Structures are given as structure tokens and as C-alpha cells.
């Protein structure tokens, strides 16, 4: 029963309309409409996954547009990548919606929230099901919209509104590149279907440019350097939103896109190179920023950027399955971490980790799940993060020494800042008079489920299960190495993780009194650099935003003064000419006669001048 696949996004979409139109009447019931819709989608996804064995491929449903004579179909593609994404999205979405029932409990715009969440789920499912780039682009923008709406959900906060704008615009820059990439790809190959990508042949430079433009879309969506600036700000939205959209699913769409078009990238090593380098830069940069930030959600946001960078790096070094694998595991543990953070914020009503501490003892479920998540992301075996990260490291090892070191450094920093976060939040002594309480059961339940995934999802791809996951994915791209992963890399990975955790422990627990300040004092410039996020926001503001706004104001002034000025100027000139000419009519009749006489003379002169004087 593969054919149910196209119905998967339908239910959340319907839920969206029901909630947006009937929100006022439904009120709290709207949550359950959304949840049930996602549940149905989940069930359908599972059945699709089961039926997948019966046949994979793309299933056109109808023509949407005719595009240079080529029909562009509404169509779904069902292959391992899709199936994996479907499952991840539906599971995470359902859990987060359940979580939201508690988290958003008192919000006046409760039903609107769930409407948006459903719309997001629908778009995201559509995105992963789309069988051609154009359909993908449509849903791509759809998720961007939901992201915008949800970031700016608390519209009264100016910061939230600004963050929404920033998110939408920044990603739109990438999206425009993606759109151009689509045009270029079509111009080169005459097809936009994913299934035709492998046999894409056209002018080399066009394909390469198309791949890079498509990657720019991924950069925007996955918040990679240089378009990463929106993601930390996006934390203004509700934390559940951050968990779903800005950690687990939407931001991974970029990685998904690169994986989806992997054959295109793989055909051009330069493109892969670019992907890997951008990923590496993002990973390292974001990890370093995360190491000093004091906002619990911002740390997680930078961590997301960093992890997404790592996935990109994985893909870029040719690790199709590695990157994808990390995508999946990351979705679970990062969603978990965000939900925990949400639970904590829900409990303590602050996001500043310097004000927290010792929460572990007061929020048991949250605390434990948080620890699981942290260890998973830090890469402590045998939690999920370890296996997927190890895959990436293994892939990078050898041919790409620089990238390998980058990835290793990132792993180290990841372990360090996550441990720092965990230690500062959960352990030690409480550093302020915060009222705390454990969250309601609707919030705790998803935490437990997700921590289960965070614990065990990685095993699917571990050598213990003979890389079942990778082989599953290899449907499209063959899994490169059957041999056992390098023990050396594995050891190195474990080593840096433990080192990071240990360092954090020593700084923030053992020598808490003097070490943080000491380091801060010693590396003041570095600290300031990191605290200010490499001044990238400021640079963008000064280099792009303000000059552009100035250009806009200038062009408006130009419009008023120059263009309209010319128009009005001509009109005024004509009018003024009239004003001057009428003064000719002096009112003195002899003046009139003189003018007439002179006029006659002029006419005579012009017409007869030559004749008259030919003596």
C-alpha cells in the first residue's frame, strides 16, 4: 500500500484549516485535532515504510503546470530517504504536539498555535515526499512560512517579530538561489524530477552552478555559514517550536536536500568540496560560539548549527549515509534537548543558565532525559549520537585531513559545551531564588519517548547491527565501505568526547570558583569575539542591511526628486511658458500691432528673403 503516501500530508493540512477557521469554537480541542492528524500521518508513514518493500519510486498524481512543454507533476517519491524522513517527522511532530498541550497551556492563541504546527507538519511531509524540485520548492517555502509564523508567534514581543522577519528573509536569500538553481537545472537537463537526476547530463558548468545554487538553498534553510544568523534569533519562538522546526526537522531539510540531490553533487567533486567546507566552517564556528553563550536556547541553537554543519561535512566528504544517519539521530536527541530546555524554562521562567543550577534534583524526569540527550550529542557510546558522529569522522578520515580535524575539534567542543550546559543547569547549587516545579505529564511523556530514541536509535546504524540503516539507505547510493570502521577513529572520537566532558567538569564543577573567570581574563579578546558571535550580525548590519535601507530611501528620494521631478518639471515648465507668453499680451493695442507687423516681416523674410534680395 504505497499509494497512501500522498495522503500523508493531507491530514495535518486539513487540521490546519479546521483549526484556523474554527479555532475560536474548538479552543482546547484544537490541540487534539492536530495531534490526531499527525498520528494518522504517522500511521500512514509506517504503513508506507512497510509497503516500501513492495516498490519504490515516484508516483505522479497529476499535472500541476506545463513548463516549457514539460508537465510538472504533483507527485510523491517513496524511497528510503523519504521513508526515514517521514518517520522522523511524524514521530517528532506528534510528540512535540503532545508536549505543546502542556507547554502552551495558558496561551490565548492556543488554537492558532496548533494550526500553524499542523501546517508545518503538512508542509514538511510534503517536502520530503515531493518527487521533483519544484514541488519541493513549494513545500520548502511552506515550512519557511510556518517557521516565520511560529517564531513571531508571540507577536507582541518586538524581538519575536524582528526574529521572524530575519528568519524569513535570510532563508529567502538562499531560497532565491535554490529557485535559480532549479531554473538552471531545468535549462541544462530539461527535467526537475529527482529520479532523472542520476541520468542528468548537460553542460558541465551549468550542472555545477545548479548544484551550488541548490546548495545555497540548503545553506539558508540549514542555517549554515554565512546564512546562519537567523537561527539563534529564531529562539524567540515557543521552545516547542524550536524543538520541532529549528532543531529536528525544518533545519534538517537543507541536509535532506543535499542528500536528495546527492548524485548531482557527487558528479562534481568541487561541489562536494564546497558542501564539506561550508559545513566544517559552520560546525566549528557555531560550536565555538556555543561554548561561551549563557542562554540555554541559544546554546542549543548554536549546537544545532554546528551539528548541521557536521552533517553537511559528512555529506560533503561523500558520506551520504553518514550525513543522513546523523540527521536522524540528531533529530531525536536535539528535539529531546530542546524539549527539556522548554520544560526547564517552563519551570524556572528564565533562559539564562547563570541563574540556574541544581535543577536535577527538583525536576527528575527532565533532568534525567536532559542528561541522556547531552550524552547522546556529546558522542558517548553507545548512545545514538556516538554512532552517527563516528560514521562522519570515519568518512572524513584519510582523504580529508583538514576536514577530519575540524570534525574532531567540533566533537570535542560539542562535548565541552553540552557538558557545560548540563552541569550549569542541572548540577551544582542553585544560583538564584527561582521557583521551580516539574512539568505536567503531557510534557514529560514526550521526553521519555524521545530519550528512548536518543538512547537506541543509533544502534540501527552501528556495526553491531551491521550498519542496517546505512544499507537501507544505500538504495540510492551504495554504502561505500563494508569493512569494519577504523578502530582508531572510534577511539579518537570517544577520547575527545570524554575530554570535552572532563574539561567542562573540571572548569564548572571542580574549579568553579576561579577557573571560568580566569580563562575569561586570559583570553579576553577571544571571549569577546565569541560572545559577540564573531560580530557577524554587526557586520551584516553594517555591510548589507543599513546600506540597502539607505539605498531604498535614496531611491525613494530619487523617485520623488528626479523622476517625478522631471515629470512635474515638464508640466511646470509648460505652465510657466504659458505664464511668460501671456505677458506678451501687454494690453496695449499698438504693441499688438507691432508684434503683428514684426510677425509679418519675419514671415516675409523667411519665405521671400531669398527672392527679394536677388538683385
Amino acid at each position, binding site marked *: 500500500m504505497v499509494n497512501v503516501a500522498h495522503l500523508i500530508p493531507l491530514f495535518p493540512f486539513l487540521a490546519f484549516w479546521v483549526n484556523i477557521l474554527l479555532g475560536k469554537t474548538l479552543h482546547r480541542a484544537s490541540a487534539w485535532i492536530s495531534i490526531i492528524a499527525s498520528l494518522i500521518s504517522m500511521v500512514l508513514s509506517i504503513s508506507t515504510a512497510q509497503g516500501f518493500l513492495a516498490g519504490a519510486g515516484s508516483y505522479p498524481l497529476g499535472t500541476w503546470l506545463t513548463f516549457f512543454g514539460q508537465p510538472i507533476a504533483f507527485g510523491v517519491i517513496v524511497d528510503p530517504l523519504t521513508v526515514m524522513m517521514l518517520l522522523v517527522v511524524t514521530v517528532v511532530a506528534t510528540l512535540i504536539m503532545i508536549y505543546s498541550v502542556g507547554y502552551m497551556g495558558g496561551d490565548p492563541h492556543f488554537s492558532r498555535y496548533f494550526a500553524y504546527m499542523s501546517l508545518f507538519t503538512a508542509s514538511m511531509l510534503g517536502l520530503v515526499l515531493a518527487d521533483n524540485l519544484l514541488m519541493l520548492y513549494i513545500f520548502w517555502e511552506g515550512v519557511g512560512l510556518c517557521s516565520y509564523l511560529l517564531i513571531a508567534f508571540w507577536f507582541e514581543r518586538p524581538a519575536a517579530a524582528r526574529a521572524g522577519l530575519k528568519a524569513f528573509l535570510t532563508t529567502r536569500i538562499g531560497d532565491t538561489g535554490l529557485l535559480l538553481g532549479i531554473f538552471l537545472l531545468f535549462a541544462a537537463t530539461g527535467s526537475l524530477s529527482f529520479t532523472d537526476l542520476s541520468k542528468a547530463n548537460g553542460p558541465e558548468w551549468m550542472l555545477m552552478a545548479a548544484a551550488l545554487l541548490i546548495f545555497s538553498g540548503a545553506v539558508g534553510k540549514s542555517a549554515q555559514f554565512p546564512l546562519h544568523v537567523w537561527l539563534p534569533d529564531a529562539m524567540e519562538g515557543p521552545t516547542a517550536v524550536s524543538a520541532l522546526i529549528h532543531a529536528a526537522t525544518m533545519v534538517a531539510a537543507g541536509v535532506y536536500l543535499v542528500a536528495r540531490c546527492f548524485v548531482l553533487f557527487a558528479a562534481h567533486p568541487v561541489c562536494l568540496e564546497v558542501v564539506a567546507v561550508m559545513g566544517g566552517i559552520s560546525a566549528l564556528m557555531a560550536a565555538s560560539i556555543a561554548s561561551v553563550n549563557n542562554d540555554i536556547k541559544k546554546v542549543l541553537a548554536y549546537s544545532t548549527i554546528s551539528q548541521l554543519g557536521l552533517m553537511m561535512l559528512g555529506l560533503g566528504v561523500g558520506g551520504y549515509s553518514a550525513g543522513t544517519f546523523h540527521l536522524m539521530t540528531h533529530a531525536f536527541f536535539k528535539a529531546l534537548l530542546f524539549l527539556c530546555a522548554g520544560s526547564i524554562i517552563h519551570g524556572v521562567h528564565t533562559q539564562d543558565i547563570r541563574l540556574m543550577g541544581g535543577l536535577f534534583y527538583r525536576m527528575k524526569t527532565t533532568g534525567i532525559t536532559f542528561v541522556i540527550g547531552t550524552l547522546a550529542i556529546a558522542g558517548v557510546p553507545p548512545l545514538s549520537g556516538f554512532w552517527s558522529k563516528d560514521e562522519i569522522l570515519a568518512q572524513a578520515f584519510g582523504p580529508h585531513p583538514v576536514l577530519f580535524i575540524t570534525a574532531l575539534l567540533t566533537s570535542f567542543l560539542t562535548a565541552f559545551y553540552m557538558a557545560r550546559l548540563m552541569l550549569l543547569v542541572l548540577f551544582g547549587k542553585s544560583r538564584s531564588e527561582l521557583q521551580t516545579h516539574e512539568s505536567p505529564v503531557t510534557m514529560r511523556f514526550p521526553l521519555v519517548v524521545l530519550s528512548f530514541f536518543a538512547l537506541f536509535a543509533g544502534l540501527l546504524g552501528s556495526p553491531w547491527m551491521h550498519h542496517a540503516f546505512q544499507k537501507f539507505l544505500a538504495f540510492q547510493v551504495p554504502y561505500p565501505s563494508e569493512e569494519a570502521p577504523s578502530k582508531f577513529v572510534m577511539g579518537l572520537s570517544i577520547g575527545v568526547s570524554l575530554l570535552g566532558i572532563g574539561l567542562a567538569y573540571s572548569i564548572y564543577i571542580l574549579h568553579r570558583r576561579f577557573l571560568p573567570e580566569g580563562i575569561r581574563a586570559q583570553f579576553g579578546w577571544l571571549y569577546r569575539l565569541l560572545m559577540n558571535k564573531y560580530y557577524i550580525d554587526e557586520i551584516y548590519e553594517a555591510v548589507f542591511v543599513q546600506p540597502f535601507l539607505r539605498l531604498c530611501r535614496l531611491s525613494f528620494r530619487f523617485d520623488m526628486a528626479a523622476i517625478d521631478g522631471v515629470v512635474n518639471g515638464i508640466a511646470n515648465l509648460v505652465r510657466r511658458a504659458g505664464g511668460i507668453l501671456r505677458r506678451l499680451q501687454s494690453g496695449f493695442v499698438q504693441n499688438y500691432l*507691432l508684434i503683428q*507687423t*514684426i510677425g*509679418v*516681416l519675419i514671415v516675409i*523674410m523667411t519665405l*521671400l528673403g531669398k*527672392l*527679394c534680395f536677388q*538683385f
Partner: protein
Amino acid sequence: MVEFAIYSIGIGACVFAILSVAVRDIFHSAVWLSLTLLCVSGLYFSLNAPFLGVIQVLVYIGGIITLFIFAIKLTARIGDKTIAQTNNQVLISLLASVVFFVFLLSAILRHPWGRLATVKELPLKELGQSLLTNYMLPFEFLSLILLAVMVGAIVIGKVKK
């Protein structure tokens, strides 16, 4: 003989005409005009058009000039000598008329007019006859014009107390 008369009368006409537009006093101007008209009448005679010459003297000098002088006297108070009689565009007007004159002459005189030997006088009878045949319509029409002008003069000229 006739030629001499024409030359001298013609020069006289020119001089008087120029005087009539050049003198300050409006009354003198009218006098010079009448002399000009007299000269023109003389020219008519020398052109063997005595009927026109007579009409010229009768209507113009007898009628129109009288009318002018009458009007000048009627408005004499303001015609006194201290007031400028010409406006401020004398120079340019002079220039314009001289240029006009040059144009006129240079255009007209390029035609090969030749010299007229002698001209027979057209008998008055024939003149009258053509006035009542060929030119009857304008002639009658003229009477309507004169009537209208007369009525107009009365209407505008009369003032009710």
C-alpha cells in the same frame, strides 16, 4: 509735362504723408494728411481718373478730415502740447516700417512694370454702367454697410441722460 507733374505731386504726397505721421501736434497732422490726400487726388487727375480725384477731394477732404478735426477739437483738452504724442516704441516701429518699405519695394519693383504711355480716360457713363451691372452687388451691399454703420454710430454715440 504730365510726368513732371506726377513726380512733383508724388514727392509732395510722400513728404506730406511723412510729415503727417511725424509732427507732434495732432491738428497739424490732420492738416498734413489733407495735403497728402490732395496730392493723391492730383495723382488721380494725372492718371486720367478725374472722377476719383473729385471724389477724393469731396469725401476725404470734405468729409473725413472735417470729421477728424471735429473729433480733435472735441477731445482737445487732452491733446495739449505738453503730453507726448508718441509711445515708447518709436525706434523699433521706425525700423519695422523701413524694413517693410525695403521689402515692399524690392519685391514690387522686381516686376517688369514698364512705363505706361498714355491712358485714355474711362467715360463716366461707362463707369456708372459697370457700377450698376458688374459691381451692382457690392454696390448694394455697401448701402447695407453704410446703414449699419449709421445705426451703430447713433446707438453708441447717443447717451441717455
